[in-house]
Structures are given as structure tokens and as C-alpha cells.
């Protein structure tokens, strides 16, 4: 898959600013530490702060993964609600659909973790390209089983 690889290589190079962002993040907790957590408003502030942080600090590629994960969660929730309302008559079909979203969500989360530069020390042996190839392999297996199971 040479085109994929070409997509990937700038991505890895773009992860170097992310690395810079992590160092600032590590230093960050010292700055807003004057916040008190006694009231709910401060909790609100904290959540806002986190969100702001997320929007500014997260690289574009990771945001894309997060958007995909949010979409998967939404699809899974929809399927579940439909199953609750209508009933689970072809149970295997419901299971196949639901577990495909869950499995894909989990695999995407794994990819996000493996390509996160903060986790470099955890995944010494896995480069970003390797993580992506693993992700494809896992997804292929998952979808083979789902399609087989849905009849």
C-alpha cells in the first residue's frame, strides 16, 4: 500500500509538534493550580479548560481518529436504542452490528494510543506505520467475523 504509506509519513512528521505540545502539557498543571475544586463552577471551568486544551493541543490526525470514535459510539448507541425499542429478533444480526462498532471503536482507540508520542516508552517496538498496519489487520479480521455472523 504505497499511497497509504505516503499519507503516513507526513503524519509522523507532523507528530513532532505534538511532541512539543506534550512537554508543555507536562509543565501545564503547575499554572492553573490556583483553582479550587470545592465548587461546581470550578469543575465547569476545569472541563472547559480541558476542552480548550484538547482543541488547541491535539494534532489534526488524532482529532480525526476521535471524530471516528465518536461516530462509532453514536452508531453503537443508535443500534442499541433500536434494539431496546423494537426487540432483538435476529439476535445474531444485532450482535454482529453492535460488536462491529464496539470492536472498531476499541481498535481505533488502540491505534490512537499506539501513535500517541507520549506512549513512546510503552510501545518501543511499534512504529506508527506498523500500528496502522496492525489496525488494518485487526479490522479485517473483525469485519470478516461480523459479516460471517450476520448471515
Amino acid at each position, binding site marked *: 500500500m504505497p499511497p497509504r504509506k505516503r499519507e503516513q509519513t507526513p503524519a509522523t512528521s507532523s507528530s513532532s509538534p505534538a511532541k512539543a505540545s506534550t512537554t508543555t*502539557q507536562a509543565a*501545564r*498543571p503547575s499554572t*492553573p*493550580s490556583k*483553582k479550587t*475544586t470545592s465548587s461546581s463552577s470550578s*469543575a465547569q471551568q*476545569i472541563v472547559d*479548560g*480541558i476542552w480548550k*486544551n*484538547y482543541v488547541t493541543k491535539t494534532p489534526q490526525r488524532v482529532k480525526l481518529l476521535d471524530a471516528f470514535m465518536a461516530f462509532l459510539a453514536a452508531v453503537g448507541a443508535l443500534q442499541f436504542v433500536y434494539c431496546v425499542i423494537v426487540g432483538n429478533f435476529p*439476535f*445474531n444480526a444485532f*450482535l*454482529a452490528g453492535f*460488536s462491529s462498532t*464496539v*470492536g472498531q471503536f*476499541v*481498535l481505533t*482507540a*488502540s*491505534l490512537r*494510543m*499506539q501513535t*500517541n508520542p*507520549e*506512549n513512546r516508552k*510503552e*510501545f518501543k*517496538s*511499534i512504529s506508527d506505520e*506498523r*500500528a496502522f*498496519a*496492525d*489496525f488494518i*489487520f*485487526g479490522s479485517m*479480521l*473483525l469485519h470478516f*467475523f*461480523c459479516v*460471517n*455472523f450476520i448471515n
Partner: protein
Amino acid sequence: MDALLQGDAAKNTRTLLRAIILLTIAGAAISSRLFSVIRFESIIHEFDPWFNFRATKYLVQHGFEPFWNWFDDRTWHPLGRVTGGTLYPGLMVTSGVIYHFLRLISLPVDIRNICVLLAPGFSGLTAYATYLLTSEMSTSPSAGLLAAAFMGITPGYISRSVAGSYDNEAIAIFLLVYTFYLWIKAVKEGSVMWGALAALFYGYMVSAWGGYVFITNLLPLHAFVLICMGRYSARLYVSYTTWYAIGTLASMQIPFVGFLPIRSSEHMSALGVFGLLQIVGFVEYVRLQLPSKQFQTLLRSLVLLIFLVSLGGLVLLTVSGVIAPWTGRFYSLWDTGYAKIHIPIIASVSEHQPTAWPAFFFDLNFLIWLFPAGVYLCFRTLKDEHVFIVIYAVLSSYFAGVMVRLMLTLTPVVCVAAAMALSQILDIYLLAESPSEGSQSLDSADATKAAAATSLLSDGLRSTTKPIVGVYSYMSKATIVVCSTIYLLIFVAHCTWVTSNAYSSPSVVLASKLPDGSQHIIDDYREAYYWLRQNTPRNAKIMSWWDYGYQIGGMADRPTLVDNNTWNNTHIATVGKAMSSREEVSYPIMRQHEVDYVLVVFGGLLGYSGDDINKFLWMVRIAEGIWPDEVKERDFFTARGEYRIDDEATPTMKNSLMYKMSYYNYNSMFPAGQAQDRVRNSKLPAQGPELSTVEEAFTSENWIIRIYKVKDLDNFGRDHSNAVAFDKGHKKKKAAKRRGPRSLRLE
């Protein structure tokens, strides 16, 4: 010598040596399993394998699709069995693939030989998988090879995988060990690929053996313990969630498993840990973004709260019955008295008894006392993978203590742990360099102390003049190495002896020694089965106790009422009732089930103890579970509570169909009044039993198997006892004068 120990040449040499050693181990593993084939012949042993063999033949003859949807109408006679949906197809499909592959390379091997030699073949692979697993655990290069050697010849594993033992465990143990290897690899690397491969092999394992539940609970437990130890890492998340997502889907492809992974209590731990990992992963992510300490503790309590709530939800679902409770087979592992009281059919299997101490030493020899040492060593260097070994060791030790059969799942971890311990010992005593003078002078303080000591005690203690003693001397090294070598050699001798004497006897043919030492083969089983095969109509139904169901189906090729797949307890109880009741009661039962022949196993003449009279009480118990007021176990015991077959036997016992069929005509073998049962060691009543509803059709050479034909209805509509009495010439009393009370004729 030095040239061989350093650099690239050394690497190549070591690789070559390793390959040679592994090949030798595989050869030893295979050849030590061939005793029974060489001594007797290449046939399938035991009871269960006969069904697997029959299913494999069906698969090879008809192809995969018909096999997957196979409805077998030649077992469980009135009901039949949906075989495709009630068996683990992995074993048969594996043999079928090997069969077709050999055809492809134009080596047409008979399917029977593939089935017989499948277990030895896979034992070599098991040894290799153990090598891989242990190499992940230990830095020592020798640990893996030792573990492979242990696994190759341990009697604990050989007992279930000799040639001819075509049972699920033949391939399941390889898959078990290999799945564990892939899982450890996945946890260490944190890689999706290894996790997915572990899931694939887990799916294969599910298709092969019902013991996959062990893996389903062991891996989550490992992950859970790691979380509790505070060792959560992104690696754990990646490997576990990948394994669970793909593995659960893969396991649900097997029709026999179906929706169990989300509907039964055995699989709930995996689901629970999956959910917990999602929460923990998310919280870890958020915690890194959070500024304040209080919030982080709040988050932690939140995790605990969610976990407890979900646990409560699980309990609620189980109680309300949405999630099926534990099945009896697994539940009896926790509540060890449960099966005996509630499900006699589980307790009646000899393999489900608790294990005695000698069995551990018999099956594992010196590994059993190296095993705790290996587990202790795992504690010393507690990495993620060592936690796994510790958990596996503790759990499987418990299970092996509860059930003889589960010695099989204990064996791999014993081999791994013992190999780690032994390799540690050998590494220290073979490789430990004595500390040179140079290294001593480095810690100058010590050196000055030693100098001071020597100046004080110039000719005092030897330890001060020569500070290097103990394990570094050649003497101590030699002692330890020689001891280990002797133990290893004894281990090999023990394994060979045990395999040859205890585990290599086919149950289909019985071997006995004549006084002059030559071997005498007792082949009654096959004699009787082939008599059935050749002298009865193809659709004659055979009723026997369920132990022989598979063999009758496999060798005699006749429909049976019950077999070893004990899925319908009531049907088995029906057979038990027919066997343990009077003829007037059992004849209608046999008519209703269209039974043509009844087969009983009787070892009284030869002293063969595994016969039906010794199993008779289980038949009574199982029947009593369904019809407590018609069959009572108490009635088969004398007033003093003894189970007897001689003159003092109870009338219920003497009138039961089983007793009559076993001892029918047995007196004719002996001089009058001297009939002797050599299993029960008791004299039989002078007057043998009379049979009226069945007639003897065949008795094998040593009277081990007796087959009776069920009589048809009487031509004149009399009941059979009257008809027999009439034929014998007992005239009925003239009833002309003494008419009974009049009764109205209805037809």
C-alpha cells in the same frame, strides 16, 4: 572453544543446536506415544474418540457443508441428535484438512491412521509452543528448551494424547499453550497484531474443546490483577480489548457456543474486565489532562463506583435469569459436593473425582516439587508475564485438585515453572564466574577490611586467607550439575515407564499375561460389536448403558438409545429404569423405544471389574432422580446395607433386568452350585435367573459382552411370563370350576 562462544558463528551454532534439540524433543514426544500402536494395532481407544472418529469419517465422505448441518438419526434413537450444533468441530476439521492435504501431495493415507496419529503429531507442536511460552518468561536460553523437553514426555499430558486417543484434548492443549504464548506476546508488545492472533487461536481453541472457558476466565483475571496492582498501561488496553473484541466474535461462530459468550455466567468475567478497561483507559487519559490532585482522587473513586454498580447489575441480571447461571459441570468445581447430590450423571464419571496425592507425583515426577520453586521465582521478578504464570499456577492447581481430569491443564504451567526453576539453578552453577581479584579491589573498603583481617589472623581461618569459596568452586558446581542431571535422567526413565505401563493400554482390547509370560489378548468387545454389525438388520436398535453408546455407533454401526454425549438426562434415566426394573416393567419401555437388542457387559467370569453390575448403582441413582417412587436405591441393598449378588441379594436386585441378563445361564459354566463371580468374589445362587421377555442372542468368548434379543409380542396375546411357563410345561391349574369374579368384555 572461544570461537564458538562469541560472535556470529556462535549465534549460528546456537541456533542450529536449538533447532536440533527441538526436533529431538518432538521426536521423543511422538515416539513415546506409540507404545500402544506398536504393541497392539493402530486403532482408536476409549469411548469418546469413537464418536469423533465417526464424525471425521462423515466429514471426509460428505464434505464440510453436510457435516456442518449433520442431523444424526442413528443415536438417541427416538430423538436423534443435531450433531452439527452439538459438537466442537475443530478436531474433525483439523483431521479433514490434514487428510485432504496428504491427498494433494499424493500420499493417500487412510483417515483412521490420521485420527490415530493426530495426538502424537500435535504433541510435538505442544512442546514447541511450550518452548515459545517459556522463552517469553525467562531470560535464560535454556528454560524454554527444558520446558519443551518436560512437556514432550510428561505423563500428565501423555495420558490424554497417546496414539489412538483421538479426543479433543489431543489438539486442545497445543492450542491452549499457543494462545497463552500469543497473549503474553501481545501484553508485552502492546500490539494489535499479536492480540488479534491470540484471538484467532482462541477461536480455534473454542472450536476444539469445551475447556476454552479456562482461557476465557484466565486472561481477564490476569488483566484484572494487573489493574489492581496498579500496572495498567496502554499495552494492556490494546492487547486485552483486541483479544476480547475479535476473540468473542470468533468464538460465537461455533454453533455449539452460539450466544453463550454474552448469555452465560462463565463468560461474564471477560465482559466485565473489558468494560472496566474502557473506564480505566478513559480515566487515565483524563487524569493526565487534569490539573488538580483532588479531582484525580475523585476520578478514582468514580471508577470504583462504576465498577461496583456494574457488578451489582451483573448479579441482578444473573438472579433475574437474563444471564444463565453456571452450568453444573463448572459449578461443581466450586461447590465440590454439588454434583454428587444433584447431578449423579456428572459424579458418575470416574474422571470427575478429586485427585489423590500420588497422582501428582505419578504424572509429574520431580516437576511437582520444582513447580512451587518456579512460581516463587516468578514472584521474585514480577513482570506482567510472571503475574500470568502465578495466576495460572494457583488456579490450575486448585482445579487439578478438584478433578482428576484437569491435571491436563495443570501440566503446561508445571512444565514452564519447573523449567524456570531448574534453568535458574543451572545458570547459576554452570555460568557464575567466580569474582576475580580485580573486581574485589574495586570495593576498596572491603579490600582494606580483608587486608586488615588477614594481618590480624594471618594463619587463622581459611575463609579470610582465601575469601572466594562456596558456589564458585568446581566441587560445588559439579555436585549440583550431576544431581540435576541424575534427576533429569530419572525423570526420563520414569516418564517412559509410566507411559509404557499405565497409559498405553487400549480399552477396546484387554491384554492379560499367561502364566508363561506370553501375552493373551481378550478381544470380546470387537467380537460382539462385529457380531452385531454382521448378524443384525441395519436398523436394529441397541439398548445399552451410555458408556458403550459411541463404540456401538462406531464399531457395530447400529442405532443406539443413549451415548456418551449425556445431553438428555431423562433419556438416560429411562434406560437406567429399564435396566433396574422387573421384566414386566422394562418390557413396555423397550417396546415403546423400539429396542431390538440389549447389550450388557459382564466381567464375572474373567474378573473384569468395569462391568455393568459395578455400574449398576449409578443406573439406579440416575433413574431414581426422575422416578423416585418407582426405582429406589435402598431396595438394592440388603437389610444390613450391603450390595450383594449372592443368595442374600434383595428380591429387587434378583428380579432386575440387569441382574438377570448378567447371570443368565452363568451356572451352566460351573459344576452344580459352584458358580462364582470373580469380580464380586461371591458364590452365586444355585438357581440361576429366568428370562421371559428377552432371549439370549450372543455371548462373547469370555462372557464379557452379552447381547439379548427383545422378544416380539406373544402371538396369542399372553404376557411373556405365562407364555414361557406354558412352553416349559407348567400346566395352568384347571380354572373351570373356580371361575374368578366376572368381568365385562369390552371389545
